[in-house]
């Protein structure tokens, strides 16, 4: 516990600050300012801690979080600052999975609730919903004991004609044994999205089993004999891989395939791209042109566009040509997951519901071995393995919700909350790199699943404009991917920089209103029943009437006139954001009103400060 610590406003040059006390707990860093407002920072969210050179007011400490929060403290005594710095370094770097928050987090659920929570998302059920197994596709037991591929799930769907030797042979010809399997089956078109890793083709190697495997996939589609093979890498990268004995499919060796590169960059490019984006967006007193050229130089939006373009290519192959598509990149767990999941999201409206989106993440990301632990740096590990691949997926989805405001059951807060928990290590879902590892960690016994918690607070994540019958005849979404449609996701990268947000949120207002409408409908029913009752028995005794009157009072209170005034402006995700529901007392309304009526935007006062100096 350190007192008299200052929390600086990130974008203010006038050194506006809050003074308060900093507490260090086993799991969180907590700052309570003089007006008792709390800022909670989970140790796992800390991406970097930096001590800046001593100033006259104390020792500055800058903490960067994985959810893009940046806090700037000034600690009066250097020794305290040094202590905090060291503790945070230790606490934010975990060496073992068992030390992660999820293993100590206890939401007061009993065992059966815990088990039920984990059963909420059932992938076997999901494949059934898609329509497999069927005449062409079957469940394979080849990987039941993780013998063929450690990073795949136990249950895999393959074409009926792909025998076990073909599977085994094909897996030996694929990087990390990740052979082609079903990711999504489109019932109407009888076409499939399949996924795998790159072939070990080098410059000329062939594998008959792998060729058979691809043939089996194309034959499993009675509507179109041709299938697409999408290599999601830039052609140059794929060619370079040949020198290492890997590479891409030679069209001459495979019958009936159409090969296509789509050019999504690798994890290292993405990591440095995000780094550049954050540098730009975090600049104090940023000019519009520096922002735009920084946005351009970071390449971030270009990458988002590339991911969505790839998904759109896949979707058109299936929806227009009824062709099956095999997607791979290098190992088939980053770009492949992005493209397969976004493709399915565009094709199938089920994935645009709250539950369906959870299923989609469980299927294409968690079960198929996207390396969440490495990519999100859950344990202290190789910094070169960190990459915002999943963040890009969420951002692509957000872009779709902007273009199709009525097509998704969930809202932005839902995406932000998932992003929060991918990094929080509070729930077991995203721990580890693959299913095998998760089973070994016994996550289902020792930790809790995120999904029942999100479903429990569903109301916060619902899109009031959602139309379940959106484009009913074909549930396909065809986004416009012309460059000007892609926008900087302010609410993700500046989620905690409140001065940049719109001061009034239409979205929250509408959400509260549609919530209120439901309540009003109830009220009307109740009132009508009462009136009917009265009309029905005009001679009822007065005593009875009085009882009823007493009853009707709370009903009337439900939608008291102050309801409307109080409600609209509370930004929902902000309340959610505060921290893992740990402090419900923190009703941000007062802060909001204060900011709304008083606080000057940082940038304006900055300009003013500058202007005054030149007077």
């Amino acid at each position, binding site marked *: 516990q350190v007192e008299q610590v200052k929390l600086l406003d990130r974008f203010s040059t006038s050194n506006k600050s809050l003074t308060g006390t900093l507490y260090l707990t086993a799991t969180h860093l907590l700052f309570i300012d003089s007006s008792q407002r709390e800022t909670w920072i989970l140790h796992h969210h800390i991406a970097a801690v930096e001590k800046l050179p001593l100033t006259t007011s104390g020792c500055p400490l800058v903490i960067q979080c994985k959810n893009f929060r940046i806090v700037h403290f000034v600690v009066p005594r250097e020794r305290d600052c040094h202590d905090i710095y060291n503790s945070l370094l230790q606490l934010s770097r975990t060496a073992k999975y068992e030390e992660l928050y999820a293993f100590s987090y206890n939401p007061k659920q009993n065992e059966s609730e815990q088990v039920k929570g984990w059963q909420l998302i059932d992938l076997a059920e999901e494949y059934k919903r898609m329509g497999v197994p069927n005449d062409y596709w079957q469940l394979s037991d080849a990987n039941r004991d993780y013998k063929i591929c450690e990073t795949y799930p136990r249950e895999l769907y393959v074409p009926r004609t792909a025998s076990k030797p073909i599977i085994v042979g094909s897996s030996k010809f694929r990087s990390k044994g990740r052979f082609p399997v079903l990711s999504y089956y489109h019932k109407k078109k009888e076409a499939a999205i399949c996924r795998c890793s790159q072939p070990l083709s080098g410059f000329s190697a062939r594998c008959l089993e792998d060729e058979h495997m691809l043939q089996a996939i194309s034959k499993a589609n009675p509507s179109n004999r041709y299938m697409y093979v999408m290599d999601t890498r830039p052609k140059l990268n794929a060619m370079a891989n040949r020198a290492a004995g890997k590479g891409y499919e030679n069209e001459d060796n495979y019958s009936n395939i159409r090969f296509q590169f789509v050019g999504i960059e690798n994890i290292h490019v993405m990591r440095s791209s995000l780094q550049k984006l954050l540098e730009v967006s975090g600049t104090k007193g940023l000019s519009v042109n520096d922002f735009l050229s920084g946005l351009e130089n970071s390449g971030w939006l270009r990458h988002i566009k590339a991911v969505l373009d790839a998904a759109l290519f896949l979707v058109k192959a299936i929806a227009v040509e009824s062709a099956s598509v095999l997607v791979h990149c290098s190992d088939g767990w980053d770009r492949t997951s992005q493209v397969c999941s976004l493709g399915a999201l565009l094709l199938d409206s089920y994935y645009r519901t709250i539950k369906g989106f959870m299923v989609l993440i469980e299927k294409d990301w968690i079960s198929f071995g996207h390396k969440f632990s490495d990519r999100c740096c859950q344990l202290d590990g190789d910094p070169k393995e960190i990459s915002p691949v999943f963040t890009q997926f969420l951002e692509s989805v957000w872009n779709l919700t902007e273009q199709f405001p009525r097509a998704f059951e969930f809202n932005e807060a839902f995406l932000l909350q998932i992003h929060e928990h991918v990094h929080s290590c509070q729930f077991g879902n995203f721990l580890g790199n693959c299913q095998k590892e998760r089973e070994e960690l016994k996550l289902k016994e020792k930790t809790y699943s995120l999904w029942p918690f999100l479903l429990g607070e569903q109301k916060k994540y619902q899109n009031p404009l959602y139309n379940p019958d959106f484009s009913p005849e074909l549930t396909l979404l065809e986004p416009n991917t012309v460059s000007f449609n892609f926008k900087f996701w302010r609410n993700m990268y500046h989620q905690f920089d409140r001065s940049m947000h719109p001061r009034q949120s239409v979205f929250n207002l509408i959400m509260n209103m549609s919530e209120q409408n439901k309540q*009003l409908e109830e009220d009307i029913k109740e009132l009508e029943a009462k009136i009917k009752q009265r009309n029905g028995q005009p001679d009822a005794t007065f005593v009875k009437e009085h009882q009823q009157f007493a009853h009707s009072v709370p009903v009337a209170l439900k939608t008291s006139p102050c309801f409307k005034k109080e409600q609209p402006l509370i930004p929902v995700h902000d309340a959610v954001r505060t921290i893992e529901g740990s402090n419900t007392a923190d009703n941000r309304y007062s802060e909001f009103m204060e900011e709304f009526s008083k*606080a000057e935007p940082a940038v304006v006062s900055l300009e003013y400060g500058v202007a005054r100096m030149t007077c």
Partner: protein
Amino acid sequence: MEFAELIKTPRADNVVLHRPFYPAVEGTLCLTGHHLIFSSRRQDNAEELWLLHSNIDSIEKRFMGSLGTIIIKCKDLRIIQLDIPGMEESLNIASSIEALSTLDSVTLMYPFFYRPMFEIIEDGWRLFLPDQEFELLSSVTDEWRLSCVNKEFTVCPSYPPVVIVPKSIDDEALRKVATFRHGSRFPVLSYYHKKNGMVMMRSSQPLTGTNGRRCKEDEKLINATLRPGKRGYIIDTRSLNVAQQARAKGGGFEQEAHYPQWRRIHKCIERFNILQESLIKLVEACNDQSHNMDRWLSKLEASNWLTHIKEILTAACLAAQCIDREGASVLVHGTEGTDSTLQVTSLAQIILDPRCRTIRGFESLVVREWLQAGHPFQQRCAQSAYSNSKQKWEAPVFLLFLDCVWQILRQFPCSFEFNEQFLIMLFEHAYASQFGTFLGNNENERSKLKLPQKTMSLWSWVNRSEELSKFRNPLFEANSLVIWPSVAPQSLQLWEGVFLRWNRSSKFLDEAQEEMINIINYNKELQAKVNALRRQLAEMETDDKMLKNL
């Protein structure tokens, strides 16, 4: 009639029209004195397109054999294409359109011929008179007076006949001050902040020249707006450099020595030719769908449009901040005081004054701070983004102002009585209109043209309930507070409703908007019903009680 001479081919058949988002249609093209009319031949569902010639910014013609193609680029940024069979017909039509869309004389413009098909309930020309504004002011303070010194437009040609000035300054002094200010635009009251009695004045630059001329009356005038012992701020919308250079041409800025009670702050808002170029570049970038991400972002950056938005908004916030936070009076000027000055003073009022965020209040603001204040609409809006002739008076000064309002509206979506459509409508009418409101460059010209007698006011049309319903913001809840927008680049956005309007379909966004309105209306309906039922129940209960008491 003169127009007939210009129309050699008044009608062409089998013309094919291409528009954004619609399939091509075949039909008949007719030219009249003021309109280009296209009507499709299909009997079942006849479509008509009426386009004002004055809305045409530029045209291009191409030939493929005997098939002529005319590409018409409009001031509202739309681009349409007409395929006309017959070389001669197409040539004739193209030259007619060219001539009719660039008529020299204002009195030939459509507003002088337009006869309204609606009943006029309120004459817009008589709606926002300075006397009414002054009446409101005098109910809170008696420090100001209405001066008729400019009655015949003799003192300042670009000012209205009556202006509001400090009570202690007589007309004689005003005449002297006028000689010391560029274009004779002496300081006048722009806004009175009721909360603390601080004011915003506007003027043009002082004519100090290189030898530092001064004018006692000018000093006295602006000092008269200060409370005893208080200081004020002069916001010069030019950079210090530019202001210094202006001295060489006889202009200049207020010297500290002569205005000791004032602090001067320089902001840098660009002038018209730079703004016009910015608009041209922006529209070019938005119209090219083939740009990859890097190219799009670099073109957006190179246009500098959002930089201008940020600069203007920042200056306006600064003015508002001086008045509301610092409790100081403010004088705003640039060079002429007819462009950037008005952007700043009008936006500051939107930030400070809730009245300006209502429909009536905003109309009044446009009339006071733009039309009466002498923003030269006719010069500035003669051409829009597709102009190829390099005339130097065009500039999207008003469009930038509307864009800034839109940015604030985005950040405070419940604080405005009007919606985005209202702003877009004003943009369209400022550039081409059947109404006389935006004709002429100042009140002097408007009175010479006898616009109030000979043309219809835009406000007469807009303020009818049929029209107003389209422009109302369903989320509006009066907010009496000062609203501080964020001017961080991350908070500013491209105004898609104007710049991408013709480049992409807004079907899904419109549907979402509609659904939102449905939810709001349903909410109102339910609340009314609940209240009615409650009343009914309460009545029954009191009846019962009365029965009991009997």
